[in-house]
């Protein structure tokens, strides 16, 4: 059995992931966010006795060292030397797509072009002479329609054939006499270093050096020929060469296109008409806000019956478990610990799935790119790119998907800032805490208090973004240069797959990290043996007394300290914990009465507590997500520490100032 490795390359948004899924039948890692597909996606197929491994490279516009994605794609082709590179080309945007082709062929790997979205191109009346294109580029060109799975067999056949053909010769752009002479003299010098020659195609390396490519310069830095390379490069204007070479590539493409493509009449199409409305000067912003408001309305309205169903199911399960399991401690472990803890997160699953479905729809149609276009000016004022708006918005539902949505952002610093400020956006899990305390202590003004908290959260996020931008993550927000993809009607399958792949991550989290957290809390509340669950004699109680001095200046006692500690698992757990600690259960009325009767709690303290819950360390699931998305525990730790300090300071201030406004309550 012969193994063949196929690397899939291409511009973002050309249907690469759809094709990858169609080829491999893979259902994993589908979320194709443009920009940050740093993890390689691989899938295997068995075909005619060949084991074919397909590697999905990040979507890139070029193979310079511009972004992490491009370096990943380029280094994969250079270092791992796949047997063949299949470039997925959007037939409706041949010109820009072929620019990448000219760069891939320079890497001297066998290339096959998958001419994708041919149906769309034909719908605009445009025809492409596939064979002519193939002979001009000296690259096999296969017609595919990824969404319908057309052309897959032909594509695999061509790829296997190309991988086995040797020597292969793709057309490589010639840069004209002067540049070619420079390249030739560089190649002559580089060839002296046998090691370099074994690792990299020398013509490619020479061309990149002429363009002033830093990644390429680093590759020759350690070489013995480094000084001679510098001699050649010094005294030349690399910027000029770079422009001239880019120009030549487009010239070659411009010479090819008229021979292979008959353009359809470019009349005002559907995309154009939609854009006229949704990016209209007056209508654009209202439409955007209405869509987002609609997303949240839908999320809650449509999800409500499912949430009720899950709640009922969990209640039934708890009761049933209490009956089945003999020893009281075991019933408590399963009922209070596992079902209570995991259940409090599972009830949000319908909301999450519906929100994701809506967002997948907006993303797959292309509207999200318009939303970024519309909001960019506002976000620029904060020091973030327009795309950062979406993660913040999603954060109101839950910070976990909000932080994951930051993957759309290209600049690494921009992405980190977007991730770090997301926990200050008040997620739906904090609402039960507000409802309990604002309801108990502020009566008719409860709505205004909750509104104040949301505004405080947004202000903190904006303020922190500005602070981070000026301190730990300095720099300009990365330039906003974005392709506006034509609108497409996503297939039901694509949207559902998209939703599932993201939603499943949330469910998995509930089964792992939340489960572990819930078990720890249960142990703390139950041990040592014999104490009443969650009483002051339990470990949780001792811990509360230990923590009490820390939060005493804020006016919080040990019960609140414990509730806040438990709230780290998930913020809504604060309410449940107080219910246990006050001995009233989770029933709102009894608990509010008990809270009101507590002499240690005033309206000012309640407000300080709500501010604390809003801002203090993100919940476990969010912390884990920050770690995963930011790539290190350092950022997760920073987020926790920053949140705690900010929460402590602000709630101290609020607790001290509030009495003056509340009439000394």
């Amino acid at each position, binding site marked *: 059995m012969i193994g063949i490795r196929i690397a899939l390359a291409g511009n973002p948004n050309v249907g690469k992931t759809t094709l990858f899924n169609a080829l491999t039948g893979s259902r994993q890692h589908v979320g194709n966010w443009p920009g940050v597909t740093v993890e390689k996606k691989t899938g295997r197929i068995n075909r005619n006795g060949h084991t074919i491994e397909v590697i999905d490279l990040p979507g890139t*516009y*070029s193979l*310079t*060292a*511009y*972004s992490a994605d491009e370096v990943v794609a380029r280094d994969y082709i250079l270092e791992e030397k796949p047997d063949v590179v299949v470039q997925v080309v959007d037939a409706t*945007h*041949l*010109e*820009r797509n072929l*620019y*990448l082709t000219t760069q891939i062929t320079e890497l001297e790997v066998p290339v096959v072009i998958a001419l994708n979205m041919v149906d769309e191109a034909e719908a605009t009346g445009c025809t492409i002479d596939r064979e002519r294109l193939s002979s001009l580029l000296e690259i096999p060109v296969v017609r595919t329609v990824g969404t319908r799975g057309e052309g897959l067999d032909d594509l695999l056949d061509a790829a296997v054939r190309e991988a086995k053909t040797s020597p292969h010769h793709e057309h490589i752009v010639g840069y*004209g*006499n*002067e*540049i070619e002479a420079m390249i030739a003299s560089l190649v002559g010098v580089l060839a002296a270093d046998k090691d370099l020659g074994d690792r990299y195609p020398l013509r490619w390396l020479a061309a990149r050096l002429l*363009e002033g490519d830093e990644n390429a310069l680093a590759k020759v830095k350690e070489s013995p020929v480094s000084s001679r390379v510098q001699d050649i490069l010094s005294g030349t*204007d690399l*910027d*000029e*060469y*770079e*422009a*001239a070479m*880019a*120009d030549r590539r*487009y010239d070659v493409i411009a010479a090819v296109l008229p021979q292979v493509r008959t353009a359809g009449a470019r009349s005002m199409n559907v995309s154009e008409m939609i*854009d*006229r409305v949704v*990016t*209209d*000067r*007056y209508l*654009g*912003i209202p439409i955007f806000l209405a869509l987002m408001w609609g997303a949240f309305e839908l999320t809650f309205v449509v999800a409500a019956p499912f949430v009720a169903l899950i709640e009922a199911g969990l209640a039934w399960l708890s009761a049933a478990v209490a009956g089945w399991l003999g020893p009281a401690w075991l019933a408590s472990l399963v009922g209070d610990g596992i079902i209570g803890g995991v259940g409090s997160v599972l009830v949000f699953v319908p909301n999450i799935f519906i929100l994701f479905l809506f967002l997948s729809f907006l993303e797959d149609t292309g509207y999200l790119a318009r939303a970024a*276009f*519309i909001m*960019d*000016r*506002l976000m*620029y004022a904060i020091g973030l790119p*327009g795309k950062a708006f979406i993660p913040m918005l999603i954060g109101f539902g839950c910070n976990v998907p909000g932080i994951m949505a930051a993957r759309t952002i290209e600049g690494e610093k921009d992405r980190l800032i977007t991730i770090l400020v997301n926990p200050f956006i008040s997620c739906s899990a904090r609402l039960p805490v507000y409802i309990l305390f604002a309801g108990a202590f502020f009566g008719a003004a409860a709505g205004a208090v909750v509104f104040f908290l949301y505004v405080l959260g947004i202000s903190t996020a904006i303020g922190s973004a500005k602070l981070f931008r000026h301190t730990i993550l300095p720099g300009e927000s990365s*330039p*906003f*240069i*974005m*392709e*506006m993809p*034509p609108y497409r009607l996503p297939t039901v399958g694509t949207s559902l797959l998209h939703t599932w792949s993201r939603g499943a991550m949330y469910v998995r989290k509930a089964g792992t990290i939340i489960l572990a957290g819930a078990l720890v809390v249960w142990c703390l509340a139950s041990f040592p043996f014999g104490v009443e669950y969650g009483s002051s004699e339990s470990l949780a109680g001792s811990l509360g007394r230990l923590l009490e001095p820390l939060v005493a200046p804020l006016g919080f006692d040990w019960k609140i300290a414990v509730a806040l500690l438990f709230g780290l698992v998930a913020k809504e757990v604060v309410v449940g914990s107080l219910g246990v600690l006050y001995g009233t259960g989770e029933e709102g009325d009894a608990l509010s009465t008990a809270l009101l009767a507590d002499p240690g709690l005033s309206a000012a303290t309640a407000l300080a507590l709500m501010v604390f819950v809003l801002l203090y360390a993100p919940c476990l699931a969010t912390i884990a997500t920050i770690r995963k998305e930011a790539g290190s525990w350092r950022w997760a730790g920073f987020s926790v520490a920053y949140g705690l300090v900010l929460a402590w300071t602000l709630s101290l201030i609020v607790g001290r100032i509030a009495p003056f406004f509340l009439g000394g309550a």
Partner: protein
Amino acid sequence: MEPSDRTAPRGGAVTTLDRIDLGCRCRVVGIRASGALRKRLFAMGMVPGADVEAIRVAPLGDPVEYRVKGYALSMRRAEAGLIEVVLEEE
């Protein structure tokens, strides 16, 4: 071929892309950006010689959407200001 040949304006005053009125077509004659931004602009088709048309402005006045190399590209005025263009005669 001298690399700088193509950047010479063929007539008409040189201005920058951010000053182009909506619906106007122009030709890129030079890119003032450097480093990563420069490479990015090249990859997106903003090369000397490219025909560009301003299509629409975002509701808050920035960014602006352009048509270049047969597709739609949006960018902030700050970046568009680094692209030198000449208006194309109708």
